[in-house]
């Protein structure tokens, strides 16, 4: 399976600021996803990011709050804009394995705390 890395691994930010999270994969993948995991909760999909097209956002998530870039097949960024304490979560990128399987593999996550 592909190796997925995220930066930063954790951060503590002040409300009103923005943080950009990077996701790097060691092989080319078509479909990448960004998830949020709030404290004690399961994972919720924020958006799907395909290279060469606009990200597709899920209900409850908007581009102005969570802009996503996908400049190539191995890299994506998620920005959490104008942060509030309610944005404190673990943010995870994932990729869908190539070939016929639906399997998604996840990065190690970015733990964000907003004060």
């Amino acid at each position, binding site marked *: 399976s592909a190796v997925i890395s995220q930066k930063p691994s954790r951060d503590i930010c002040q409300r009103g600021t923005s943080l950009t999270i990077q996701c790097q994969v060691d092989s080319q993948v078509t479909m990448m996803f960004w998830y949020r995991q709030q404290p004690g909760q*399961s994972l*919720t999909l924020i958006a*799907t990011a395909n290279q060469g097209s606009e990200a597709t956002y899920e209900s409850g998530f908007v581009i102005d709050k969570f802009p996503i870039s996908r400049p190539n097949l191995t890299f994506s960024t998620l920005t959490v804009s104008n942060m509030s304490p309610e944005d404190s979560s*673990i943010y*995870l990128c994932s990729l869908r394995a190539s070939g016929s*399987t*639906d399997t998604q593999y*996840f990065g190690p996550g970015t733990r964000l705390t907003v004060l």
Partner: protein
Amino acid sequence: EDQVTQSPEALRLQEGESSSLNCSYTVSGLRGLFWYRQDPGKGPEFLFTLYSAGEEKEKERLKATLTKKESFLHITAPKPEDSATYLCASPLEVLPPSAKAAGNKLTFGGGTRVLVKP
């Protein structure tokens, strides 16, 4: 609305005490089922994918099974290192494994926190 529900929310086991976790899903048809293990502060680690009712997959002390309505993750003779949160998920769209195109977003259950005490 498609839903994925896991039970119990938490499970405390003695080392060697076998048990099962349940994942039920309400979707319009049989969907694929994914099982993940998540350790605190880490991303989910892929365990199994099941596509067909009656399918079973094993990995060390874990065995996943699938029916038309639910999936079970059986933990046989667990050890303390099996302590983790176990997540199941289903793609809202899935095609047979033989198809090139595949499903997209995963809907996750709430997870089962498993604690195995020595």
